[in-house]
């Protein structure tokens, strides 16, 4: 009742006296957004604001940022604007928006299974990828449910059930391969009496795979699911440095489709390597020379005198079962009863985090009874029941009530910090006690499962998986290597992890006096040498620009095109990811990014943006941020001038040098001309940026978009960590201990 009254009071054209909102609308808005004109397809007359949360949110933002009414038009008094803002904000408070029903993401599903059964399944070929256009794939509204998804659940569940419950221990086999069994692409690899050589880092030219035959091209294919051990005898040639091999799955005839599953560091002097892989029937494994110095050799690969890898012998053993029965088999069939209802109960208890309701249980029982009736073996019954339970909504969907029950609370924390189900210790802890909650947080962050959180979160927050979407042009950037690009895509995660583990200030995301780098990246940034592929902390010399997220080559590269940088993409990236603001491409306008090679054109574009009111609203914010970064080229290296490229032929390009002008001005008049000045400007906005990051963490963990509604929550967290130097770790503690975290 209260709610209805409120609604009536606030609805603009209600029978009550004219509200402030009405006043503002009718005097300042309706002429462009009313019955006569609907600029931007927005109409503000005759609407029920209380039922339109999204519109209310947009109105608040537009008024706060003074984006509307347009600068040239009549402006409302600040008293009126403030009063309207309060009214609008109150409107948001009247209705609590909960998160939408969530299902497990592919990663969560996989981790769940692997944690539960101590397996090492990679389900990426079975379950569709979860896309997230506007944020995180953990949001219910982002998650697609489709027939294809459903069918994949059935298929995946049956796959898992069949691999977990095995009737007989599979026989282990050994395959012995020598040089005559080695196959490649014949363009950058070759064979001599002595061995098989890889020379280039391009899988089309250099890869090693195996044939069971010494004479024909038939390929070796994994015959059965299981763990396989690969032993390779090899020698590094023409090099004193360590090298890196890639392990790839896929049809070696089409290396473009290779799926990289591992990279192996090969210390110089290595004579043989051994690795274990969990593989599926039909898999084909190829090795590539990922640290090679060239992507193609000039003449014959035999004549190439740079670093090479020579392979002389290989054995493959498998499938290997170290323990029998396996842990999973033991866990599943542990219960000795041959009653299938009891087996169903046991499996539910093992697999599901929540008890089934009576009807669901009844339905499962009748499924179990049908198995009894068919007189299937216990193993068969277990497989069928597992398939059924893993396909059921109780497994696939997360169950959360308005106020989270203790079990759901533990689950939410666990999906946040481990991207998987809670373990027994977390489930039995009393998380309402701050002390115990803190203990659990520390324990969980120290567990290696926390890596899944940092990786998944940074991937989705910063788009680190898109770093290599556009490969550097070999003609313009002949000295950018695949392993460097790989390191770029891992830098943000290493940086985030270090800040988290070491209780550091979130301000480091804007600027830091250190970076995280491995051998490749330190070399790329021309910093003192770092040993090995692992990321280590590197203190920066005073005045060095690379600190913080914006100095990272990964970001600079993913926002560029093949030959040119894009100030617009970079600016949008900063607004979306660093400020945490929403930014949508203009609707109804066919945006074709103009050719922005060369300084003159860039300034022209900016001018164009600034002169059109339509474009100005957003581009006045976007463009200066990106322009300030023009001293960084498409692969994220410092440059002192532009290289304007003209493509002459496949092999040849013409490069013309041009002067860079990175001067720009923010809407509030602050001047920028470099990464340094940009970072200083961002440091002024520190509070806004840290709150933005808190918002991202809240969205990721609760599944609720960090809308204005979450402002009090975000403010509380910010307040709490202000006493703790804005520590990221404390922010996470403040997030999970806040009462809003326990709301659906």
């Amino acid at each position, binding site marked *: 009742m209260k709610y209805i009254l409120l609604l009536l009071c606030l609805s603009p054209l209600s029978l009550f006296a004219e509200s402030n909102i009405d006043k503002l609308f009718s005097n300042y808005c309706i002429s462009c957004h009313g019955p006569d004109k609907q600029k931007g397809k927005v109409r503000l007359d005759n609407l029920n604001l209380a039922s339109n949360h999204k519109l209310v949110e947009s109105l608040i933002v537009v008024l706060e940022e003074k984006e509307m009414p347009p600068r040239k038009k009549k402006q409302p008094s600040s008293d009126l604007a403030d009063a309207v803002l309060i009214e609008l904000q109150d409107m948001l408070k009247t209705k609590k928006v909960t998160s939408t029903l969530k299902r497990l993401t592919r990663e969560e599903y996989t981790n769940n299974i692997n944690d539960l059964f101590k397996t090492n399944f990679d389900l990426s070929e079975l379950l569709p990828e979860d896309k997230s256009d506007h944020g995180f794939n953990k949001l219910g509204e982002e998650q697609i449910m489709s027939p294809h998804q459903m069918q994949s659940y059935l298929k995946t569940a049956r796959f898992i059930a069949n691999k977990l419950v095995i009737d007989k221990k599979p026989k282990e086999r050994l395959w012995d391969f020598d040089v005559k069994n080695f196959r490649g692409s014949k363009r950058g690899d070759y064979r001599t009496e002595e061995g098989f050589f890889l020379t280039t880092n391009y899988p089309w030219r250099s890869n090693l795979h195996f044939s069971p035959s010494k004479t024909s091209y038939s390929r070796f294919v994994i015959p059965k699911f299981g763990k396989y051990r690969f032993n390779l005898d090899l020698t590094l040639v023409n090099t004193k440095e360590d090298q890196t091999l890639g392990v790839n799955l896929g049809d070696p005839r089409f290396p473009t489709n290779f799926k990289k599953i591992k990279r192996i560091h090969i210390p110089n002097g290595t004579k043989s390597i051994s690795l274990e892989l969990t593989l599926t029937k039909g898999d084909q494994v190829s090795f590539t020379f990922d640290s090679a110095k060239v992507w193609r050799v000039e003449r014959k690969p035999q004549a190439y005198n740079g670093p090479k890898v020579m392979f002389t012998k290989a054995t493959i053993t498998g499938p290997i079962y170290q323990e029998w029965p396996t842990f999973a088999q033991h866990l599943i069939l542990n219960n000795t009863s041959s009653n299938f209802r009891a087996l169903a109960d046991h499996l539910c208890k093992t697999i599901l985090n929540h008890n089934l309701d009576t*009807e669901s249980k009844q339905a499962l029982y009748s499924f179990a009874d049908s198995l009894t009736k068919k007189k299937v073996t216990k193993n068969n019954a277990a497989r069928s029941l597992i398939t059924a339970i893993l396909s059921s909504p109780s497994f696939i*969907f997360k169950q959360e009530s308005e106020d989270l029950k203790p079990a759901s609370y533990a689950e939410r924390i666990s999906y946040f910090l481990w991207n998987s189900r809670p373990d027994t210790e977390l489930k039995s802890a009393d998380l309402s006690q701050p002390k115990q909650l803190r203990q659990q947080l520390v324990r969980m962050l120290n567990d290696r499962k926390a890596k899944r959180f940092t990786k998944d979160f940074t991937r989705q927050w910063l788009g680190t998986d898109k770093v290599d979407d556009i490969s550097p042009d070999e003609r313009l950037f002949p000295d950018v290597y695949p392993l460097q690009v790989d390191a770029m895509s891992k830098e943000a995660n290493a940086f985030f992890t270090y800040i988290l583990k070491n209780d550091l200030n979130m301000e480091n995301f804007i600027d830091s006096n250190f970076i995280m780098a491995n051998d490749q990246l330190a070399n790329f940034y021309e910093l003192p040498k770092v040993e090995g592929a692992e990321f280590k902390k590197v203190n920066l010399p005073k005045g060095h620009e690379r600190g913080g997220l914006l100095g990272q080559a990964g970001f600079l590269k993913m926002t560029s095109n093949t030959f040119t940088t894009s100030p617009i993409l970079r600016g949008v990236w900063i607004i979306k990811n660093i400020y945490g603001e929403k930014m949508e491409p203009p609707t109804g306008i066919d945006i074709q990014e103009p050719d922005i090679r060369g300084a003159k054109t860039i300034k022209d574009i900016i001018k164009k943006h600034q002169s059109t009111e339509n474009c100005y609203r957003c581009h006045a914010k976007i463009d200066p941020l990106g322009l300030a970064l023009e001293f960084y080229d498409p692969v994220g290296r410092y440059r002192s001038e532009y290289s304007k490229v003209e493509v002459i032929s496949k092999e040849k390009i013409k490069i013309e040098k041009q002067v860079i002008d990175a001067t720009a001005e923010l809407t509030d008049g602050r001047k920028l001309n470099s990464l340094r000045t940009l970072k200083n400007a961002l440091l002024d906005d520190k509070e806004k940026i840290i709150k933005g990051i808190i918002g991202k963490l809240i969205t990721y963990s609760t599944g609720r978009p960090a809308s204005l509604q979450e402002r009090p929550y975000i403010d509380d967290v910010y307040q709490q960590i202000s006493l703790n130097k804005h520590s990221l770790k404390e922010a996470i503690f403040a997030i999970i201990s806040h009462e809003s975290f326990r709301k659906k």
Partner: protein
Amino acid sequence: MNRRTLLKAAGMSLLLPQLESFGEIKGTQTKRLLTIVNHLSFHQPELVPGFDKKVKKPSLLNSLKENKNNLKLFSGFDNPGIQLGLGHTPSVGILSGYFNKLERKNRISVDQQVAEYIGQDTRFKSLAFQAGYNLNFSQVCWDKHGLPVHQLDSAKKIFHLLFGIENDKKEQQKNLTEDKSILDLVFKQAKSMNKNLNQRDRHKIDEYFTSIREVEEKVKRQTYWSKKDKPKMDYTVPQYSSHSVEEFFQVMLDLAVLAFETDSTRTLTIQIPFWEGFKQPNINGNYHDFSHHGKKPEKIKKLLVMENMVLNKIDQTMTKLKQTSSATGNLFDETKTLVTAAMGNANAHTFNDLPALYYSNDIKSFSHERHEKKPICNLYKSIIQDFSGRNQKFGESNNSVELV
């Protein structure tokens, strides 16, 4: 109104064994769609009259002469839904009219949209073949959820699907039966879960219900057909060189005609994907390289050898369809054929100025129509309308196209 439409209207079509209605629609003409995409496009000065003023008689049209009277040629189409792509990659959006490099998913393609309307009564709702092993940039068929439809590139596997006998039929039957009871079980569980949800979450669970029902249909279809013997065909997959574009394409065309002849499906798509090195009796080389002719006459000549071969094979296939009798006449009467190119100009990697060929029994004489800068979705929209009877927007479409 029959029982099925009534139940369908009540949103319950899934509770009915879909295939009970098999053969229900008597008297109406069976309709089929054959779609052929050539990834490396066609050299348009030699295909489109007037494209190049200097070319008096486009030579490629000669290869189409046998069935030219049933052919309509379109040119000039744009594909405005293709964004943010470089090189060959955006080619994946040729049939959907959409591509965005930043998205893994696409939108439904024209062939699959047609299959939604005419794919109910056959063993396969649709089939997709690929005349070449190269998997790069080659996904062109997308389902209604924007997910890739598996494109088969092995003639042996296709033959097995169409005519082969299931090896582990028992296991297949067992799994299908189990699928059925599991779907039934999870449906009940979801229903019970539904009670405790708010309205928004119910909407989410509704998607789950829909999905369960769709899969139920699929399983039903598989189960129904798994009991029926596959048609017997006096055909063995010939030994063909997988290095020859010509032989590969020919086998796929033959299998397509067989699939139609046995009414295994009514929607079939063949793509000639990205080809590099190939060997054929009359010509060797790198097809991709030919397409980057840089306007050099000697390279264009080689390219035209390939394109004449492709078009000639299409022409021969049309003749074959005419020679193959069907329940109501011949296969050509039943079949509309759409031929497109994934690029307008493979020399420059452009995705506008796209040509299209359309074969139909309703066409009585050859004509050429230019649709300068109009979205190719206009053509797709009209084709879909021809099959569905519904005038609905498809992708970027903003108008209709006369198909005759």
